[in-house]
């Protein structure tokens, strides 16, 4: 078993002033060349987990426990310059909202040149590389895009620019925080196809954050399911989709509309809403909405354990009899 590219251990993220836990003891790894999808509803802590990897947590929130092991360093406890040299270079990130993620008063070309200059200094062929990157991601007329400002482009185009920017220095790991959520469905497909293509081409690792289980089906190798700040299930895409063990995962899968459904079949949804992570004590956070829950679920914290198909944190796995 070769060593993982990046290993997150017991990552805990809380608010700085009143210490409310938002991400609770999350651990997972990504192997070189592997794509991992993190799935969860809003408030599950998936975005904060991703931001922690590059030390990009917003003001008022910090990682209080755990470690992130990469290239022999702990990214949570390394100096600023080391972290900076990794960002955009060895590990890159693309974000959810393309409308606000780019500097509005700086030309697109300049924003990409900046990446090269920040890590390699002035480079004679920088412009060439940027233009090539633009055409690689499918931007028509790269020369015009180079001189343009973000507001002159649509959301889908801006996302392509962001992808070009992230892949410019051929990072080992690409972190993608729901980059297609804000886009039209048809554009979504294009962007997904683009990312998949690039990933295969470069054999790049990927961490893909999404709330939409359907998106990860063809995209990733392994799936991590998060609920209320914790990981509740981990497994290969095949296992999670065909044989989910955690009731929450099963519920998520059941709620996906399927092409095979007959007309007028009601969409299944899980009743209730997720609790805030910091309000859940020593218990299963999903117990309030779970049909299989009993007193044990409400008073004891389930731990991630291997089972026949995946790893899941539950006392009453789907495979077991009620």
């Amino acid at each position, binding site marked *: 078993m070769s060593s993982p590219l990046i290993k997150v251990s017991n990552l805990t993220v809380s608010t700085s002033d009143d210490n409310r836990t938002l991400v609770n003891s999350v651990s997972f790894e990504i192997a070189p060349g592997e794509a991992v999808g993190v799935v969860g509803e809003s408030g599950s802590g998936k975005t904060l987990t991703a931001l922690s990897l590059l030390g990009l947590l917003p003001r008022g929130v910090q990682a209080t426990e755990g470690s992130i092991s990469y290239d022999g360093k702990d990214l949570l406890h390394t100096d600023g310059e080391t972290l900076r*040299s990794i960002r955009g270079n060895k590990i890159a990130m693309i*974000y959810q909202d393309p409308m606000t993620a780019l*500097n509005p*008063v*700086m030309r697109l070309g300049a924003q990409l040149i900046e*990446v090269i200059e920040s890590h390699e200094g002035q480079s004679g062929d920088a412009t060439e590389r940027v233009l090539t990157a633009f055409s690689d991601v499918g931007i028509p007329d790269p020369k015009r895009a180079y001189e343009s400002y973000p507001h002159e482009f649509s959301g889908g185009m801006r996302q392509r620019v962001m992808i070009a920017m992230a892949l410019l220095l051929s990072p080992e790991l690409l972190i993608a925080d729901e980059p297609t959520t804000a886009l039209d469905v048809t554009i979504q497909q294009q962007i997904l196809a683009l990312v998949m293509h690039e990933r295969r081409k470069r054999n790049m690792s990927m961490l893909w954050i999404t709330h939409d289980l359907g998106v990860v089906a063809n995209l990733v190798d392994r799936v991590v399911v998060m609920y209320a700040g914790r990981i509740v299930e981990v497994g290969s895409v095949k296992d999670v989709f065909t044989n989910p063990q955690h009731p929450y995962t099963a519920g998520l899968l059941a709620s996906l509309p399927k092409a095979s459904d007959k007309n007028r079949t009601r969409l299944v949804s899980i009743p209730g809403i997720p609790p805030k992570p910091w309000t859940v004590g020593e218990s299963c956070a999903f117990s309030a909405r779970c049909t299989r829950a009993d007193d044990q679920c409400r008073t004891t914290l389930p731990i991630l354990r291997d089972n026949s198909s995946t790893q899941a944190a539950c006392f009453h796995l789907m495979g077991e009899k009620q």
Partner: protein
Amino acid sequence: MTVNKRLPSTVFFTRLASVITTLFGISIFVFIVLRVIPGDSITGSLGIETGALSPEQIESLRAYYGIDKSLFGQYFSWMGSFLTGDFGFAYSNGVSVLELTKSALPVTIQLALFGTIFGVILGISVGMFSASKPGSVRDFAGQFFGLLALAVPGFVLATTLVTVMANVFGYFPNGFEYMAPWEDPWMNFQQMMFPSLVLGIAVAAPVMRTTRSALLETVDKDFIRTAHGKGVKHRVVQFKHVLRNSLIPIVTMTGIQFGYLLGGAVITEKIFAMPGMGRQILDAINKREYATVQSSVMIFAIMFVLINLITDIIYRRIDPRIK
């Protein structure tokens, strides 16, 4: 988000119309405040104190004031004179107000310019310093400085400066006759120094506040996270991404401050004996030279409106999103 598809020319003319209406309103306002209210004292003095004026000048002044006409007639008389460059005459020496203004205006403009430049540099620096660590000691210090700069009156600062410099150090260039920049650039610079310092501090206070809040607002934006996320050096992020995007409110505030310095430096001009428009107005008030006061105030207002217009144009240039 739809882009406002108005022709540049439409926008321009709308603004122009708006500016002209405002100027019109200003002229009426100046007329009411400076002419209607004192009323008879003007007509009265025109008989007694016109010693130094020639008969033609007296006639011109009567036309300027619209004496013996109805209120409306007076207004249009004045406007007619003003718009043709006849700003009236100073009683005491018969010099036309136009001439007085020609020599006084450059002084005021230069002073306002120096003061604004100094104040903006100081204000932005302290603002950046404060915003770099919000809630910290340095933030508190920066804001305290801003408060003092605002609260200590300009005339107190100026008087203290004069007292210390002239009496303690024996260095007071403003005690000598004023030199224009083309007459004696070094002397001019020295004479501009102290009043610009005083004015600059007054300007720095609101600029600092604007800078600080603009920076704090920008720093939380998504694209700053993107900049950090791609490994851009911190200093570069501060200047090229944060500051650059905070400029618009700062530019707007700078324009407003410059406009205010043009007319609001009255006291400073007096203390440092700078022969600018402010001193012109004060002298005119003391000598009851109504024509001078009326014209000068009108000129101030026009300049301020123009500055606002120019500021507007500038920030449309800075922000590529606004067409």
